[in-house]
């Protein structure tokens, strides 16, 4: 069956370092992948989209890559700050019933 998976449930990173989160997909070829941020007690908020024909996308301190060979997207936050602490979710496009990965809870340690 089609799956979107985020292998790390939690990740702790020292402030100032780069945080890297992973999203893998199986039995599925998404036309694009999206990344969302979710703060406790709130709904997810869209951050970035990358299409299958794009290798990399950047927005300020955020960078997303899409590797169709590895069937994987990486989400990077450079120069991480405590305010970046949140849960990050990935989602594959093109199938409305294919929902989100379970998310990675990122904690930036001062």
């Amino acid at each position, binding site marked *: 069956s089609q799956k979107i998976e985020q292998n790390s449930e939690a990740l702790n990173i020292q402030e100032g370092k780069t945080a890297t989160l992973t999203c893998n997909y199986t039995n599925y070829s998404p036309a694009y992948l999206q990344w969302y941020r979710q703060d406790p007690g709130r*709904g*997810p*908020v*869209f951050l970035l989209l990358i299409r299958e024909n794009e290798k990399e996308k950047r927005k300020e301190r955020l960078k997303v890559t899409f590797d169709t060979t590895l069937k994987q997207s990486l989400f990077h936050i450079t120069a991480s700050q405590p305010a970046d602490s949140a849960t990050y979710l990935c989602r594959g*496009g*093109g199938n*409305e019933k294919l*929902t989100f990965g*379970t*998310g990675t809870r990122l904690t930036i340690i001062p």
Partner: protein
Amino acid sequence: DVKVTQSSRYLVKRTGEKVFLECVQDMDHENMFWYRQDPGLGLRLIYFSYDVKMKEKGDIPEGYSVSREKKERFSLILESASTNQTSMYLCASSTLILAGGGDNTQYFGPGTRLTVL
């Protein structure tokens, strides 16, 4: 700015009660979704609707029904609430997928934390 609102932030109900959760979006989006979110299980799709009066089951529709009488409003109904339906419920909306280059970013409401006693 897209706005998705949900009728309540917190709700406490008793087992067996009928529960209505309402969601309204102001961006004229065709698609609307209901999810529940539980620790360790992530977001799970209950139902979605791609047009007025149209609906499709998601991964966990059992014990739930939905209603979409108007484009901007999507209601989730728990016919007879049970304790295992205690959860955070999130509503979202998105545009219809367009061919060749469209995307369907989902815009979420703030969520309703439902407790069933």
